[in-house]
């Protein structure tokens, strides 16, 4: 197997790059009306500390992009820069651009509140509201001025999150009464309810058991048909299983994180260009 891979290396590389270009071109066409997400020379500071150094990243439309790397390398910081969640950290400061729907989201004219409706987020620890399952989903839509039928919306979102059959008879029970995996799918359904285009996931399975993890991963594959997904994960098997593209991040001597390699997931896991990536994905490091 290893031998085949090595001998076929040049051919595979050509194929991979050709596919990347094709995907990029297809995405380019949709970029204006749908909005593609990309970072350009992005730097994030916490006070004087440089947390992320000059990141350039093109997130493919309706694909799953995984961000991997050792702890503390700035994966979550990068993810949170995409929907301006870092705004809530008083010392955080951003330089460079993140472009979404043809606009730099750090432009003063952009309202982060409106942005976060289009770029939703699922967090590391399931964090349903301490309210009923129904309200968990309906609330986000309600505050964003949803004018349709909330009952239908709740059902649709729970079905999309593969949770409907488990909770349809207890919609008025607290979201906290569910199991960890169910709670995380509830959080996913909640994020879907406000009609996002992009879903950011910050280690969504790290608090879940393997079975619940698999369910979430299956769900991600299904959702990728309609949504752009960016996932931060510590679990390399997970990145390999679910993602189409993988960005490898690493800290430098000043503890500033940067993307050292970004390619199709297959390439990252089979023929990484960077020595550090290879060490990391093969488990020799971190």
């Amino acid at each position: 197997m290893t031998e085949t891979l090595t001998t076929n290396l040049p051919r595979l590389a050509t194929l991979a790059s050709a596919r990347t270009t094709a995907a990029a071109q297809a995405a380019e066409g949709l970029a204006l009306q749908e909005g593609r997400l990309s970072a350009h020379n992005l730097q994030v500071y916490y006070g004087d500390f440089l947390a992320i150094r000059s990141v350039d990243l093109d997130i493919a439309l309706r694909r799953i992009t995984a961000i991997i790397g050792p702890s503390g390398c700035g994966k979550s910081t990068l993810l949170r820069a995409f929907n301006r969640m870092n705004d809530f950290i008083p010392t955080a400061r951003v330089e460079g651009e993140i472009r979404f729907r043809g606009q730099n989201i750090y432009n003063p004219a952009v309202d982060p509140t409106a942005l976060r409706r289009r770029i939703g987020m699922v967090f590391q620890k399931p964090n349903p509201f301490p309210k009923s399952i129904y309200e968990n989903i309906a609330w986000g839509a309600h505050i964003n001025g949803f004018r349709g039928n909330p009952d239908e919306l709740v059902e649709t979102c729970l079905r999309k999150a593969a949770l409907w059959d488990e909770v349809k008879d207890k919609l008025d029970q607290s979201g906290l009464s569910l199991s960890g995996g169910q709670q995380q799918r509830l959080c996913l359904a909640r994020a879907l309810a406000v009609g996002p285009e992009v879903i950011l996931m910050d280690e969504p399975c790290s608090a879940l058991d393997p079975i619940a993890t698999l369910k979430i991963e299956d769900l991600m594959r299904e959702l990728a048909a309609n949504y752009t997904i960016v996932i931060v994960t510590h679990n390399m098997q997970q990145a390999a299983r679910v993602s189409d593209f993988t960005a490898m991040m690493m800290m430098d001597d000043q503890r500033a994180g940067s993307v050292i390699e970004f390619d199709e997931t297959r390439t990252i896991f089979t023929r990484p260009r960077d020595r550090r990536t290879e060490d990391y994905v093969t488990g020799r490091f971190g």
Partner: protein
Amino acid sequence: MSAPAAEGVFRSNLSARHRRGRVWRAVFLGSTAVALIALAALGGNILRDSVGLVAVQDAIDPGRLADRPLERLAPAELMAILQDHLSPAVFQRLDSEQPFAERSRRALHKLVIERVVEPQILASWPLDESLLERGRIEAEAARDYPRARLEFRAWVNTNFLSRPMSSDPMRAGIRTALLGSLWLIGITLVFAFPVGVASAVYLEEYASRSRLNRAIQTNIDNLAGVPSIIYGMLGLALFVRALGPLTSGAFLGLTDTNGRTILSGGLTMGLLVLPLIIINAQEAIRAVPSSLREAAYGLGATRWQTVWSHVLPQALPGILTGTILAMSRAIGETAPLIVVGASTFNPSDPTGPFSRFSALPIQIYNWASRPQAEFHNLAAAAIIVLLAALLGLNAAAILLRDRYSRGLRGT
């Protein structure tokens, strides 16, 4: 190197460590015992004064008023007794307040006891003496008050709760003071709760970590420790004097009051407890997990939507607990009320925010500072009422909080 060699570097001090642990455990137990003894002493002391034997003497022996016991007399006969023994002027006045013909038999009987029989308390003994030295007390009473009879009296009774202030210990009650206290904490709550919670929300959710905001925070923390008499001085200068036209109700056309009203007292108390409410509410808001805020912000909620729908409901049990604690402080405060001008003798009930007022702690202070022992009994009885009000308030807060947080957990 090897295990026995490593063993040698540890001194076998296990028994000494356990001994030291036992000593500390005894110290902790002793401290708890001291607290319990102090509490028991407080309770015992109050109880001792609030129940006991009294020597009661009637101005006129009821047996001389009629040939049967007063309880069995008909209304007409009771009316006749009143007419015989009251001066015509007093009789006329009582009749014009409410015609005797319309009064019930019970009301007339009560009137005869109060106005004609006029029982007076001549002496009182504390509970422990009443129980253990009955013989001595009986001898003492027979010697000093030959016409009096000994009765066992609980100073907290329905009459005590329902009667207004009086200079006669037999008739004195705390209705006026109780109503005054209720009015006071009502005004305090209405003023301090919204202002305090709103400040806490601002400081926790909106204010940046600037130098100015840190200074404000430090000042609020310090204000919580300022002695209450100083708040009294502030209330006197601000509410009674400077804002007198407002707090006296003069702007509404009231002319019979000055600034020393319930409103001034309540607002002063409000200032006093405001830092407590702010600090407690901040504590409660800070305890709301940030994951909840992130969840809301991540859906495109504004700061206000997040605060209103998630942070405040989650923090409410803590905020309520803090508020109730602050109210407990307000209901027991005495010093600022004295400065602001609570009346120590006020027989008329408060009728609104612009009334003159008295309050439970003022009443207790007043009674306790009188020389006669009977007023000390009254003070003890009033303390029991005050403590009961406090316990009731705290119990209500705990019930409210538990019910609410159970609702949040969804079980």
